[in-house]
């Protein structure tokens, strides 16, 4: 596999786009890295979100 883009990542300053709970972005900022937050909402909207996110965090 051509790894040039991965090596470029390894040699660059990390800038993270966080799609999900804000606490993950905050955790990166507290470590001194750049993170920007995407306030994601499901296309279907509303009700499913809370339940599904809870499920997700159950790992």
């Amino acid at each position: 596999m051509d790894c040039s883009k991965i090596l470029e990542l390894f040699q660059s300053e990390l800038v993270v786009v966080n799609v999900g709970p804000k606490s993950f972005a905050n955790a990166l900022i507290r470590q001194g890295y750049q993170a920007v937050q995407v306030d994601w909402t499901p296309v279907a909207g509303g009700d499913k979100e809370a339940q599904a996110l809870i499920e997700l965090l159950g790992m």
Partner: protein
Amino acid sequence: MYWIIEKGHYIDSLESLFATTVLNEQPGIQRALVGMATGPAKLILKDVGLVNEELLACSDADYVIVAEADSQEAFEAAVDEMRRVMKQNNAVEAEESYATVAEAVAAHPKANLCSIAVPGEYALEEVKKALNAGLHCCVFSNNVPLEDERQMKELAREKGLLCMGPDCGVANINGAALVLSSINARGPFGIVGASGTGIQHVAAILHEAGSGVSQTIGTGGNDLKEPVGGLMMLCGIDALEADPETKYIILISRKPAESVLQKVLDRVSRCKKPRVVLFMGCERARIEATGTIWAENLDDCGQKALELIGKSAEFETEAQLDAMAAEAVKGMAPEQKYVRGAFSGGTYMDEAVHAMEAVIGPIYANNPNASPLQLPDLNKSIENTCIDYGEEEFTQGRPHPAIDAGVRKPAILREAADPEVAVILLDFILTPPGHPDPAGYVLDDVRRAQKMARQRGGRIAFVASVLGTTADFQNIDDQRRKLMETGVLVCSTNYKAAQLAAKIIRLKKEIG
């Protein structure tokens, strides 16, 4: 019942779960719920009887704090404290937020990695957007169909990008601890692993010995299954072999599917860098036939990696554990004979059950992978029992115990109330988004448990391990010290803690 409604104030689901936990712990509060007044939230309010017309009339955009409390004053004081803790927890906030990945990338053209934690059914869509925007991905989402996972990883390969996960809980890129990783020192070891706890464990051993990791790449737990074909494991090996900062490569997984194992071993045999491979349950000879160093378990994997640079990890010796066990049984009552393990990490529970059953026989557990003896009632441990508090039945409505230490907390006093319990075995996992003081959080309960045992004329041995590093915000040394000062027997690793617990139980049986 007392309540506050704040229109137009938004907090995400994780924050509301955290706020609910904090509010419930305040004095004078019987039960409480904090969050957005969405449909499901209103159903929960109805279920717990914390509801009225005004709350039902709220919309998805309204933030509500509801509690049954001793008095208005108690409620107000509790809410103040909750807000203070929340503010402290959110001390550093992402300043900007965007509606989509495309908007975020347009505003930040140097963005190079996307961390994705959306419900599994939406993950493929979000990963595609990120990969198409040229971002490497770290995908925490789980319950992603294997077909979706294969699609994501094929697209990533086509574009020459990383797709760590789905179900990737641990990855360290350029020194940053992503998702639930520990903060690690940089060093010559690159790790690719399908087990998050496994990567974190080995990286922590390297850190403690004064070395560190170049990059750690989590593949997600399903990568080495047949339908996914080890796509990310193979990509990770290619990347680490090409990376000049990586001098040694470590691979960690449960035993891969046979066809995938063969493919990975073929690749490993062509790898030009020294490597250590831990594929749990895989024949040693097959690993060694590829010119690779074989590791038996997580501790061994860390140790063998360190040997490559002339260092070694210090684990307790058998003699030290025997001496600790001999000390621990002093003062125990005759009826005390069982161990109860309460784990926040599934991998750790499996490891502990296997380590202990070899010494003390069958152990009840709540995960069929760990033990054939399934615990019928999760609130009632039987004889020797281990419970993984990360399993679904405990996390419905709450985040995983690595983030929300409250999930596991009630176990300590419940197990200690059983006069036949001799040992309570615990793990603690440190990560930047996790509890700021997971050990400190349970110390009061540990003291109360010790007192209960003393009042019965006995003595409970608490045995624990902490996974993390001195670079973690919670600092592993501080966490270990707090536990030790409270009389907890702290071992260097989970495996050693399980060995000690088993030795105590065996010794107790011998002396009666």
